């Protein structure tokens, strides 16, 4: 099911009357460029290609009839394998109030995603959205409007309350009002902002989330590796959500994030509306990255 550039690579390699080692080397370089053009991180690509070379030039290929196609197949299968072979489920508590915390860089789609998550899960649980972003102008208004549109609970605390206090009070409020699930929207922040990263660590300690989801733009570039590593190191994130998948980005950030953290991508955002939200399918992204 590989189309586009990979098709071109296969066709050009097939045209060779016999496959020499230099043809394979060209094929490998083409694949490396294809992955880089898809925004997969440079170092991730290097490692990935080295592993593919070892696997493809091992025993299996010598026995195979078409070494080039075998090589492409190894790349494709490895990509799917790396992305995770099944949908990673959200973990909820058996009893008591479950907590999801969304985190990420500025503008990645956290607030919208909180509403989408709530809307996706509301049939089985009573959901409370928590507006813990006290920095961005009208952030709480934004979450409130979305909560009303989706008919979800909303808690935004007092105007002078800090994010930690809002989260603690939200849990109390959720207990009082019989909510099953609390979804916390946090302010966008840089992973190098020590004060704000510490704030997240404090929130984690206070509310003990069942899920800490890193929300990333699907069109993120090379640097996402450094960003998500730091978030993961500080918080031990439980999963990833990729947004703006409805753009025409190749989405190589997905592979970079997965290879860097080992954490699963659980959902993708496919538009601005609350129902533009889907379970992540590894084979779909593999095809898209390979172009």
């Amino acid at each position, binding site marked *: 099911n590989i189309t586009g550039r990979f098709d071109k690579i296969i066709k050009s390699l097939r045209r060779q009357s016999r496959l020499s080692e230099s043809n394979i080397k060209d094929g490998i370089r083409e694949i490396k*460029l294809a992955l*880089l*053009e898809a*925004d997969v*991180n*440079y170092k991730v690509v290097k490692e990935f290609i080295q592993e593919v070379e070892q696997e493809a030039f091992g025993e299996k290929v010598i026995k195979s009839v078409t070494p080039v196609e075998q090589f492409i197949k190894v790349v494709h299968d490895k990509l799917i394998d790396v992305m995770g072979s099944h949908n990673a489920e959200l973990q909820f508590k058996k009893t008591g109030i479950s907590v999801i915390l969304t985190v990420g*860089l*500025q*503008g*990645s*789609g956290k607030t919208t995603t909180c509403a989408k998550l709530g809307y996706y899960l509301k049939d089985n649980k009573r959901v409370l959205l928590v507006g813990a972003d006290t*920095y*961005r*102008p*009208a*952030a709480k*208004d*934004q979450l*409130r*409007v*979305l909560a009303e*549109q989706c008919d979800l609970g909303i808690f935004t605390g007092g105007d002078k309350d800090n994010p930690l206090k809002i989260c603690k009070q939200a849990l109390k409020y959720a207990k009082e009002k019989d909510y099953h699930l609390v979804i916390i929207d946090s302010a966008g922040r*840089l*992973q*190098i902002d020590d004060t704000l990263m510490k704030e997240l660590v404090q929130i984690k300690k206070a509310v003990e989330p069942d899920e800490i989801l890193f929300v990333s*733009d699907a*069109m*993120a*570039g*090379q*640097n*996402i590796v*450094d*960003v998500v590593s730091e978030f993961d190191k500080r918080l031990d994130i439980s999963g990833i959500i990729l947004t*703006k998948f*409805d*753009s*025409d*980005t*190749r989405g*190589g*950030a997905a592979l970079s994030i997965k290879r860097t953290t080992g954490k699963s991508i659980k959902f993708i955002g496919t538009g*601005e509306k609350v129902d533009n939200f889907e379970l992540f399918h590894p084979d779909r992204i593999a095809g898209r990255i390979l172009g």
Partner: protein
Amino acid sequence: LFSKKQSEYDFFDEIEETLIMADVGVETSLAIINQFKTYLNDNKIHDPEKLKNYFKQSLLDMIPHVHYELKENQLNILFILGVNGVGKTTSIGKLAHLMKAEGKSVMIAACDTFRAAAVNQITAWGERADVPVVKLEMGSDPGAVLHNALDSAIANKVDLLLVDTAGRLHNKENLMAEIEKLHRIILKKASDSHHETLLVLDAGTGQNAFVQAQTFHKSIKIDGTILTKLDSTSKGGIVIALAHQLKLPVKYVGLGEGIMDLVPFDKEDYVNSLF
């Protein structure tokens, strides 16, 4: 100890890695490196010590230097476009403050009537910058807001009108058609104004930033870009790709979330930051 030849190869490998990891993009990085190799051969330059400085200079020569300036005695309009979440609304707040500090009269048109609390957000920025915001409630026609804003800006002899628009993906034809429609209102109603369109790009975006610029430019002539979030650990290499392939200048850079965190683009600072 490296031989001269080997040092050169290491240099090019190093440059390729630096450029690609800065999000300059594969095509532009390879093109730039090849052009540079030719230049070195033509000029018989092989001293590894000199390579880096020559390369920096070649990047500087490639980047257009265009400052945004208000024209005196006429209405200036900045039409602000970009995909979702890049920093359009925040950049407008910062620009309003910057221009007001230079003694200009500024007005904002809240033409994002779609996204939840978008009008509240730009209104808050207008208050921070102490400039009037022309708006209608969420769900109104953005064209109606623009009409009102242009009427008011012209009547009040405003120096600069900043037009905020809803985030939109460039691959959505109906949303691109909407932006063309808004642009036509400006052309029709304010034909003797000095109007420019700036595309806002996020420094953390990968090579899709280039596709965004190309695609928006097909719909409306883009006069320049605002590159936001350069305070992050991303290098914003799109600057180089835009310069090399599209000759598109960066006019402002966003360096944070505060009202003062916007500066005119400085290409020397930028090239030095890459290395």
